[in-house]
Each structure stands twice: as C-alpha cells, then as structure tokens.
C-alpha cells in the first residue's frame, strides 16, 4: 500500500493558496463543533458519558495486561530456600504472590460488575425507543405517505444502539482475554509449587530443613499421588548420587561412619512412620467409603419402606372412603325400610282398631 496523505495535503495547500480569499478559512475543530451544536436538531446526539467510560475501561484493561506481562517472570520464579533475603529486588515471596492473586481477582470482578452495569444501562436506554405502531388505520395511512425507509431519527437510534452493543461485546472479549492470561500464569505457578513440594519430600541433602520437611511430608503423600513417577525418578537420581558419593570417597573415619549410620536409621524410622500413617489414612478412607456405601444402602431401603407405607396409606384411605359410601347407602336403605315397617305397623294398628270398632 502507498501512503498518499502527504501528497494529498500538498494538493490541499496548493489549492488553498491558489484560490486565496475565495475560500472559506479552514475551520478548526472547535468551530465545527459550534456549527454542529447550532444545527443540533439535525444531528441527534446522545449526551451521556458512555464513550468516555468505555475508553477508560479499555485503558484499565490495557494496564492490567501490561501488569501481567511485567510480573510474569518474577511471579513464576520459584524460590528453593524459604528464608530468602528480603532485599532481593526481583523476587516475590509467597505472601506477595497470594496478595497479587487476591487483588487481581477482586479488580477483575469489579470490572465485570461495571461492564454488566453498562449493559443494563444500554438495555434500559434501548427500551425507551418508541416502537413502530404495528396496527391501526392511522398507521396504514401514514405508511403510505411516509418513506418506506425508517425515519432519520429512528435509523440513528438503531445504529447507535448496535454500535454500543458491539463496543460492549468487544470490551467483554478483552476482559476475558486478560482474565485468561492471568489464570494461565496462576495455574503454572501452582503446578510448579506442587512439584517443588514433592521434591522437598525427597531432598536428603538439606539437614536443617528436616523439621520443615517432616511437617510437609505428612501432608504431601496425600497431595501428590499423580507425581508418583516424579518421585520415582528423583529417588533413582538420589540413589545414583549416593552411589557416586560413595565411590568418590571410599575412606570414611569410624566416627563418620557411625554418624552416617545413625542418620540412616533415623531416616528409615521416619520413612516407616510415614508409611504407617499413610496406610492408616488409606484404611480409614476405605472404611469411610464402606460406611458411606452402607449408609446409602440403608437410606435406600428406608426410602423404599417409606414409599410402601405411603402407598398403604393411600390404599387405606381409598378403602375407608368406599366403606363409608357403602355404609351410608346401607343406613339410608335401612332407614327407608324401618320407616316403611313403622308406618305399616301404625296403619295395621289403626285398621285393626277400625275393624274392631265396626264389628262391635
């Protein structure tokens, strides 16, 4: 592509200088805006701070991106020794990193909230646009008189609505990408720290970290079952190192030998203790699972029993209703019957009396 702008500007200047006073003075932006405000009836302008806020939003996102890029390397750097000197400039301690995590997440949440506010504002503004009248004789006539195309103002409102909608989608995409990039480095850091913990577990050389490691070692076997292969390879490496060490320095004094032996015994007891704890934990987990299974089974049977109880209940209710009905029928029939008998008796009594009277 070729940039014709300088040539173009040249032409404009030449024309202006040639035509001299016959041309209006070149209006600058302020004058154009004044002209525009005068004719504001023709140019509908929505007076709100939407554009400014969107630009600010974008700048915040850009700043966040730069921040992520800048802290990426110190954030991912891993410290081997816990007592690192605080004066080291480019490294971040674990506390710093956690704080960065929290604050970043908080900031992102705020941005999401702001974006949703902007979206609801747009939705409300759009709902205020009057809809085209759909039915009615008057609109039929109007439709014939007016243009087929929508009116200028309506077109403007529609266009600016879709423009703003696209702007908000764009901002959402940008925010998502910042969020994702931060999550990526967060994940990396977490996985690296996990690997490091498992390595500490195998680290024989650091005597002063024994206490720290013992505390760690109780938890880490549970936390890192997928790193079994890693442990195995590091164990192999350690064995190699030991063997090399032994080969290089074959002569130890008796004292050093006994010292090494006691150390070995301590490590061995530590390991067996850990193994026992692990086994205990495993068996308790298995017990818990079994109990859970039994509980669920019992719950299931209870559920079935309750269901059958309820069924029975319903059945009983139905039976009782039927029974009531038949009883009622029976009583009414009986009533009729007794009524009849009683009246018959009375009539017969009167008849006998009457016959008796007559016969006398």
């Amino acid at each position, binding site marked *: 592509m070729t940039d014709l702008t300088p040539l173009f500007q040249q032409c404009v200047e030449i024309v202006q200088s040639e035509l001299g006073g016959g*041309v209006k003075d070149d209006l600058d932006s302020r004058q154009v805006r004044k*002209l525009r405000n005068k004719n504001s009836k023709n140019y509908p*302008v929505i007076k709100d701070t939407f554009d400014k806020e969107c630009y600010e939003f974008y700048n915040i996102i850009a700043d966040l991106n730069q921040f992520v890029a800048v802290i990426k390397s110190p954030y991912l750097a891993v410290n081997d020794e816990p007592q690192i000197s605080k004066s080291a400039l480019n490294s971040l301690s674990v506390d710093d990193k956690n704080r960065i995590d929290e604050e970043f997440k908080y900031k992102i949440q705020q941005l999401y909230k702001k974006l949703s506010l902007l979206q609801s504002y747009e939705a409300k503004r759009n709902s205020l646009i009057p809809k085209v009248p759909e039915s009615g004789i008057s609109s039929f006539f109007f439709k014939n008189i007016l243009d087929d195309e929508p009116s200028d103002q309506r077109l403007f409102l529609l266009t600016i609505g879709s423009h703003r909608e696209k702007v908000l989608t764009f901002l959402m995409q940008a925010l998502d990408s910042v969020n994702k990039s931060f999550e990526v480095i967060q994940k990396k850091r977490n996985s690296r720290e996990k690997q490091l913990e498992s390595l500490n577990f195998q680290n024989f050389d650091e005597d002063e970290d024994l206490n720290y490691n013992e505390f760690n070692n109780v938890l880490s076997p549970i*936390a890192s079952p997928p790193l079994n292969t890693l442990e195995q390879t590091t164990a192999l490496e350690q064995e190699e190192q030991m063997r090399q060490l032994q080969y290089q320095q074959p002569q130890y004094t008796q004292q050093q030998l006994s010292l090494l032996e006691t150390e070995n015994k301590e490590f061995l007891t530590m390991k067996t203790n850990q193994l026992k704890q692990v086994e205990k934990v495993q068996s308790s987990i298995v017990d818990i699972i079994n109990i859970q299974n039994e509980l669920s089974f019992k719950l299931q049977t209870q559920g079935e029993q309750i269901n059958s109880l309820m069924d029975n209940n319903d059945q009983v209710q139905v039976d009782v209703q039927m029974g009531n009905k038949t009883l009622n029928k029976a009583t009414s029939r009986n009533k009729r019957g007794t009524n009849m008998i009683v009246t018959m008796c009375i009539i017969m009594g009167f008849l006998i009396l009457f016959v008796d009277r007559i016969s006398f």
Partner: protein
Amino acid sequence: MDESLRGKQIATLERMLHLNKDGSPDLTLASRSEEIIWKVLVLDTKSRAVLSSVLRVNDLLRCGITVHSLINSKRTPLPEVPVIYFVEPNIDNVLQIIDDLENDRYDSFYINFTASINRELLEEFAKKVSISGRSFKIKQVFDQYLDFIVTEPNLFSLDLPKIFTQFNKAGTDEDTIHSLVDRIANGLLSTIITLENVPLIRAQQGGPAEFVATQLDLKLRDYLSNSRNSPNQSIQQRPVLILLDRNIDLSSMFAHSWIYQCMVSDVFKLQRNTIKLHKYSKDSDKPTLTNYDLDPRDFFWNKYSQLPFPDVVESADAELNTYKNDAREVTNKTGISSLKDIDPSADNDTANIQQAVEKLPELSNRKTTLDMHMDILAALINELQAKNLDKFFEIEQNANDPKTEKEFLELLVQEAERDNSVDKLRTFLILTLLVDLPKEYIDKVKKTFINKYPELNFDSLNYILKFKEHSKLTNISALNDTTTQSSYSSANNNTSALLSGLSSKLYGLTEGKISGGLSSIASKIKNFIPEKKQLPITSVVEAIMDPNNASNTSMQLTDDYLYLDPKARGGHSKPPRRQSYNESLVFVIGGGNYLEYQNLQEWANQPNKPSKKVIYGSTDIMSANDFLLECNELGKSS
C-alpha cells in the same frame, strides 16, 4: 504469518483496519492503550466482496469495527466516531465522501482506495476538500492495492465476468479491448504488490495474454520507479508470472470432477467462500435453498477439500468419531472416575472442570463445522444419484477409449431422476475437444439431443466445433494428446475395506434417506478410482518452472512464450532462458475453475520433491454451467 496469498491479504486488510499503524490489529488483546479503538467501516460493492470472502463480523469486531455499511445506502451520522472508507477510486465514491465530509457525519476520516487513484481524481478530491474547509478531518489517504478476491489460500479472482466472450467475439472494438486489458493489468498489479515480490513475466503469444503482459510490464516499471515505493527482498528468488489464455484448455472448464471442492462448485454454487445448497425433498418440485459460509479457519475444509469424494466421506466419519471421543473424555473427567478424586486437598476436580469449560467452545465449533459438511455431503450424494454424475465422470476420464463413444450414446438416451441434459452436453463437448469424433457420430448425437431435449441450447456446440477446427490449425491441442499419456501415478488403490464400509456410512450420514441406489454407486466407485492426470495447464507450468522434468512437447510450446522482466533496465524481450523457479503466479485470462487449481496444487506439493508455491488466478472463477452460457453467447453471435 500465513505466507499464502490469502494470509497476506488478510494481514493487509487488518493493518488497514488498524489505521495503517504497526502493532497487532487484534485490539481485544489490549496490549497497550490506544487512542482510537472503535470505528465505522464504509464499503462499496466491490470492496465488500473482497472483504467478506476472508473476514467475518467477529474478525471485524476484534479489529474494533462496530458498524459497517455500504457507501450508497442511507447512513446515519455518528459525529463522535471515526470512519474508515475502503472504496474504489471512482468519482461517485469521491463525491459521496465529500458529501459526508460537508455534513460532518463522522469525526475523522481515514480513506483507503482499493486500487491506485489517478492523479487528476486525487487533485479534484483535494480541491473539493479544501473548499469544504474541513481538510483537518481527513487524517489518512492510502492506496491499498487490494482489488482482487481471494477465497482459497492460493486462489484469487478479479471478479470480471464475461471476459472470454468479449475477447473472442468478432464485434468487439479496440477501445473496449484496451479498457479490459487495462483493468486486468490493474488487478494483476494489485496482486503482485500484495505479494511484495516483482516477478518475471512469461506470456502466451498471439492473444490477450500478450497485451496484458506488455501493459503490466509498463505499470510495474512505473510503480517501481516511483521513489516512495521501495521494494525490499532482493535476496529472495523472484517468482514467475505465467499469463495464459483460456484457449489453452477448454475441456477442463466443462469437466465433471470427483474432488470435493470441485464437486461443490459444480453441483452447487461456491462463490466468495459462500456455498449455496439446494436440496430437493420428495414432496415438492422446488428446492429448498440453504447458505453456508466457509471460514478461512474451517479445519475440515482446509484438510479435506482437495481429496476425492469417497475419501472425504470416510474422513468425515473419522472426524465425527474423534469428536465424540473427545467429548466423552471431557465429560468423564468431570465425574468421579478413580480413587484419587475423593481426596479433598487436590484441586484435580476444579482443574478438570476448568479444562472442560475451556474446551467446550472449541468442541462446539468443531461440531458445527462437522454438521455443516455432513449436510453438504448428504446433499451432494443426493444430486450424484439423481443425475448419474459418476457415469459422466467415467466417460470423461476414458475419453480416448473407443468404447466410450458407444457408452455415451447409451447414456444419452437414459433417463435420470432429475434433468441432467446440461451435464450430457458438457460431456459431449469434452469428447469433441479431446477426441477426433467422426462426423456421422456428431450428427447422430445432435439428432438424439434435439429429439430428447428440444429446449436445450446448442450454440455452444457450434462454437466448440469451430474452435476445434481452428485449434487444429494452430496446434494448441497437441498438449491434450500428450498429457493423457504423461500421467504421473500416485497409488490411489482403495481397498475393499474402505468401500464396504462406505455404503453403510453414507447411509448413516444421510439419516436413511437414501436406499438401495447407494450400493450401486459404491460398487462403481470401487471399479473406478482414477489415476491422477496432469491437465494441460499444469504441464505448461511445469515446463516453465521445472524444465528438467518436463516433457519435450510442452517445452517446445513454452519456448515461444514472451519473456519480460520489469526490473531490468533497458529494452524488454530478451530471448527466453530456461530457468527453474520455486514460486509462480499463474493467471488465465477468460475464466478459471477449481479443477485446475487443485491440479496445480497437487503438482506443486508432490510427496517426494521439494514443494513449490503456485498461486492460481483468473479474471473470474466460474462453474462449468456459467462457462457453457458464455459459449452459447459466442456460438450465437458467430
């Protein structure tokens, strides 16, 4: 960066949308704070065709374009928003821009022309701008040199219809020819500038190719001598631009093909990366129309569009299975599948769910692409069966075999489910072109045609017969005779395992709509898997690019070609040298098709040789039916 022509065009377009600044055009990455982020894009019809073939609305949004509209439509003023114009450099567009400027429709104006704007128009534009008094609003004016349409990575078209008709009609006057040649040369200039490497020109003599070549040479010299255009890259080897006339091979324009991409463009419509399907249902006579858009990142199309049809069906099935496996894997990970998941302190669960959430959009995209292609394949199978297209393909491949004449006669009287008279005519035209048919045979066929299909237009047949006589005199058809023997075979032996599964898979794909006819198609496929042949155009390209391996007849032919070098000082027309090239740009004046494109790409990417880069283009990429209509017109006028 994607080094193909399409990649370069996308890069230029995105750079333009980024206001011709350096830096990543994808503004959602927000790598730094920008002053101008959201813009409006105004196009005209030609530039919209260019843009929509390669960029979608999402891509535009990522570059910050919120609203796009046509320059001639009613546009609403957006006084606070900057605007990018991407239009052709003609007077109407310029007047429209001036009108927008005077009415203060937008905040700042960035103007990009698709091709080079000529000096008078630029001055006129500047004059009007300065009269309006708002020249400070015009921030940039650029020539982008992008008036060509790229669909496949190495395929481009200038979108100039009916060139073949106009060049071969007797009544075209010199002025029209001159303006057409000029337009073609402009389009080629844009392509060359986008590729950023000035080629050597070889052109076929005695036709429009020669004119275009000389014009292009002049334009390139002008462009290079302009001090503001500095060509870099003198270290790279220069490519060769091969200009050919359509007369070199008419049979490939009519051919039926077995390759997925060619079939789609033949049976349906494939233009500007949009496929227009028509599906016939059993109830109605009228077809239902569906449109599909092909994204440049469509993984299925990029991988399989150049394969023959049965392979594509197989691969579609394989991809569907891979997708199902992946989906199952992802959903399994979020459930409890092993003891370790009960462990509370591990965050494997959340990690797995996070992974699933990340993979979901990618998986659903894959599914939509696969669904689209399955639909297309099913529709293709329907059409194949209804029109017996496989028979035509067979006849065309075996054109030299004397039995095919009889076969064709039988086929001619056969009825098909849907009207395939045009396909029959096409096959007949190919037979006429490739083989010297006896006169009685031609008359017999003509009579049968007229009896059976009285409404069919036979002007094209007359034209082709005349063309054949003419070409016998000028010996162009020599290429066709030799190429049928110089086929390079690549083992394409499909085993029966492939084909026995094929019919059941096809059945499954189309949801049981096709019944017994499918097994017959499958068996025919089995009987006939074609050897790969070289089209005449490929042998010409081979002769120019790789003279050591080409056949003698094609070498003799191409030695006559014109040789021009825009960078050489002094006179043109040095004697041609036999030199091998690694990159080339092949341009056919009068029309191109996907079959030649695929053939060239196959030749360029042969498995045991170093790969060459071949870009194929034409004045218009058209389907066989369109070319048939042009031949009809030619036959009518002569």
